[in-house]
């Protein structure tokens, strides 16, 4: 049975590229090294929810159509629109996004990627503060303090800790669980380890302080080696692995971050508690931050989505920047979709801006809040929509989705999702990273190749190719229009 090695996993922003797939009769039958989400994707991608034929809405019902008809219909919708939106892009290849940007420019539309509802605020804050960051290997080799804030890697990026941070083996810093994992690895399979570890952590006594355990003595972070701190509104699975957990009151992250900033500048605070956490606990953590050799702060959408949004990130970026005058510290957003970083990257090199790019005046304009897709929808301004590899009906607030489904709506996706159900044209596409090759960018901006390991269903094309066909059809329509206008 052929085994394909070094496959890049097209699920989350960790972009693990050590997946081994066993292929039998052109089907993936076994997945090695992957997490639960990875396995689920590789083993089930071709299930019964797959779209295999293009669909066009006729008399209120989606009916089968030819690819040519569907492309033609899509091109007509886009070419006639006065303010179309082109949204998605973070679950497809950079190559497809590249064509998508050209299409957006051609039709004078607004092109936005899912970062807008994920780490868009982080990008806005980077644009004000900058960011002290690095590739993940730096953290593996050097970090002796790792903090996850508003992020639950155990659930959203399951192998992050093992591959890149606390449990990884670096040149200057050892893995915390190496002995442990190695011993168990020898006797039982990898899958079991995870459950063993999980059970272990659950058994571990909560040495964690929280606002609900007041009156206890402030625990100290004195352990040698790599330390793990988790800060979150809930005690997540990741929190249970941590050496130190701080439970912050919902919507109070900004206050906590600012308090840390003041503390690392040796400023005194007038208050005893911040965000429900006694200041003495914070002092303990800020000492750990200043005292480490190399610290890393990972933050998730817990910061970008709660009250304060971009300003939470502003404070986090500033905190890390300030820490660099005392020690080495880096910060990184935990990017969700496997190629959301790539979508931002391509958009930036072609237009100067990472997302929410408005081409309606013939050149790129950028102002999230004005040119971002949720706002455009809330103001009911768009008059057509192309959704590529995303499911906004399932991800946007209902009010925004309402206007979206009123627009002539085209969906390019391998699966029948909520948005596809509402669409006027549905174009089935190949799974990028399984049935189509390309490039994706990891959360630290390392580009990795996506492999084609299986054949797409007959007649199903990759996003890149579908978009090229739409683009060329749009150009044909526009040329015809121009000729007609000149003839008049």
């Amino acid at each position: 049975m052929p085994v394909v090695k070094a496959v890049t996993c097209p699920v989350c922003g960790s972009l693990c590229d050590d997946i081994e797939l066993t292929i039998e009769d052109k089907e993936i039958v076994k997945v090695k090294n992957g997490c639960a989400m990875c396995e689920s994707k590789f083993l089930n991608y071709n299930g019964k929810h797959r779209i295999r034929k293009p669909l066009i809405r006729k008399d209120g019902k989606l009916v089968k159509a030819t690819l040519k008809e569907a492309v033609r219909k899509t091109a007509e919708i886009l070419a006639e629109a006065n303010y179309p939106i082109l949204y998605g892009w973070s679950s497809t290849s950079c190559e497809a996004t590249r064509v998508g940007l050209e299409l957006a420019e051609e039709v004078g539309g607004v092109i936005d990627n899912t970062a807008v509802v994920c780490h868009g605020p982080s990008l806005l804050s980077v644009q004000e503060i900058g960011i002290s960051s690095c590739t993940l290997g730096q953290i593996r080799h050097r970090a002796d303090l790792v903090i996850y804030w508003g992020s639950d890697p155990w659930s959203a990026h399951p192998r992050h800790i093992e591959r890149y941070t606390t449990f990884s083996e670096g040149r200057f810093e050892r893995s915390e669980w190496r002995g442990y994992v190695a011993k168990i690895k020898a006797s039982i399979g990898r899958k079991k380890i995870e459950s063993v570890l999980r059970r272990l952590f659950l058994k571990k006594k909560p040495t964690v302080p929280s606002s609900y355990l007041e009156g206890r003595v402030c625990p100290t972070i004195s352990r040698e080696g790599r330390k793990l701190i988790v800060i979150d509104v809930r005690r997540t699975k990741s929190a249970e692995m941590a050496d130190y957990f701080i439970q912050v009151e919902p919507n109070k992250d900004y206050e906590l971050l600012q308090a840390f900033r003041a503390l690392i500048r040796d400023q005194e605070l007038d208050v005893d508690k911040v965000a429900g956490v006694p200041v003495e606990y914070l002092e303990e953590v800020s000492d750990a931050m200043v005292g480490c050799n190399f610290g890393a702060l990972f933050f998730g959408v817990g910061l970008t989505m709660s009250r304060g949004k971009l300003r939470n990130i502003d404070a986090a970026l500033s905190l890390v920047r300030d820490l660099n005058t005392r020690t080495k510290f880096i910060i990184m957003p935990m990017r969700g979709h496997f190629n959301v970083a790539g979508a931002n990257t391509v958009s930036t090199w072609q237009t100067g801006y990472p997302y929410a790019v408005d081409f309606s005046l013939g050149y790129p304009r950028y102002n999230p809040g004005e040119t971002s897709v949720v706002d455009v929808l809330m103001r009911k301004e768009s008059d057509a929509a192309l959704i590529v590899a995303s499911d906004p009906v399932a991800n946007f607030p209902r009010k925004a989705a309402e206007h979206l489904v009123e627009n002539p709506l085209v969906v390019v996706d391998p699966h029948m999702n909520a948005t596809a159900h509402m669409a006027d044209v549905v174009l089935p596409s190949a799974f990028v990273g399984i049935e189509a090759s390309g490039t994706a960018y990891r959360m630290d901006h390392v580009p990795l190749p996506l492999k084609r390991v299986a054949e797409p269903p007959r007649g199903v094309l990759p996003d890149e190719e579908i978009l090229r066909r739409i683009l060329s059809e749009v150009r044909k329509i526009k040329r015809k229009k121009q000729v007609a206008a000149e003839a008049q």
Partner: protein
Amino acid sequence: MELLVKNGFVYDPLNGIDGEKMDIAVKDGKIVEKVNERKAKKIDASGMLVMPGGVDIHSHIAGSKVNSGRLLRPEDHFKDFEPKTPITRSGVGYSVPSTFTTGYRYARMGYTTVMDPAMAPLEAKHTHEEFNDIPIIDKASYPLLGDWWFVLEYLREGRIEECARYVAWMITSTKGYAIKLVNPGGLETWGFGHNVRGLDDQVPYFCITPREIIRGLCKVNKLLNLPHTIHVHTNNLGKPGNYVTAVETMKCVEDLALENKPAIHITHCQFCAFKGDDWRTLESGSEDIANYVNGHSHATMDMGQVIFADTTTMTADGPFQFALYELSGNKWVNHDVETETSGGIVPFHYRRKSYVHAVQWSIGLELALLIRDPWKIFMTTDHPNGGPFIAYPKIIAWLMSRKARGATLKKVNPRARSRSLLPSIDRELGFCEIAIMTRAGQAKALGLKDKGHLGIGADADIAIYNVNPETTDPSRKYKSVRRAFKQAANTIKDGKIVVNDGEILKHVGGATMWLDVQTLEPIKITEEMKRKFKEYWTVEYENYPVTEHYLEVSRPITVKADV
């Protein structure tokens, strides 16, 4: 297709042509002896300058760092944009332009070859993806190798030939063009937030000094027979007193030079020509550097000229960028790359009225004018570090005209003005010297045989500028010279007319040049290397190299190495 450029004043220094009125014939993208005059498309260049297409040896135009700079500065693009036309793609400009705009703007100035000087090997795919979206101009990139763990370890152990083989593997795998060193040793040290202070400082944990790295890679460069020398951004860059480091860096490879051939390129030399103990006592170290360079033949350099404007500094020199952040308080990006290198970005505004900035401005021009041989110093702004490349015509005017220098000098910080050497320098460069500093010399230093000249067989990359050397005295009429170089009358790329009067006529894809370094015995990827790979990087060995599929227009250059 055949093309005939008629009656221009041709400046082709590599072929000894200095302003002769002659025709240039082009066929199938190459310069040829002659073409059928009746069939060929003719360009009337009478009363105009005809030069080889411009070559830029050092300009940050693509890759992860440049793109982070773009991302960081929406306010930089906000008012400088280019709308889509039926021919061109849209984009944004100023100090970090988007890819399409970068290609168009270079082409409009008559430039056809640009080298991106800093590519983190791990992120090489990114650079190449962007290259595909930079139209018209040919490109290449230098991988950053001065702090790569393999280099540090093999050099420490004295295993120079093995080091050379790995460097060869790396250049070929990343589709790179030359060995780039940035603050050698300092970037690894920056991994824990520190820096090296000089050529003989130890790199923590690696027991090697910057001097050993520079000498080691210089030897490697020779063993591999690479077309360009090592390309060095010195230690202590941007620190007062660093001209000593620059001179020492050149000295340290003096004995490695062969038959007067260059062995080292010191890049953006302006930034390492500072004399003085601190910013207050800063003065120009250009004379000391020029004296050294005038007396030796193993070093070339480029200016790194400062332009008074708001720009975005970006280098792989992480500690330097952090120092710049502390100095300016502006936003700061740091990006360290595992086992390889680092990088940083800080927006920066060079102001006429600032003493330090005015001194820097003066240093760049002093270097270019005090170094007698134009084949040794090339015109750059270290785009965008000293200023955006669109300012090149201004620099040409300053170099060609005392009056132009005087006009700017009048407006700068008085203390800097009184200390500037410029008033004492009478030298004014001619068009031939400009042609050397902006194309011929750069192509020669890069070892690009088909570029930078108009001899038979050369690539038909030609720039035509609307200024008449017989009737225009550049010393007095520097403004018309500036105008002419800003918008080429025509730019011809691979025999196609791509620009007419500063307007883009064609969107063609430029090629990506890279070295296919062939070692005597092919590089064996041993189990040891694979093991090391797993330990050092967080990506799999198979996913590391840049496959040729990433290069839309690939132009490999085969190099036979001696190892």
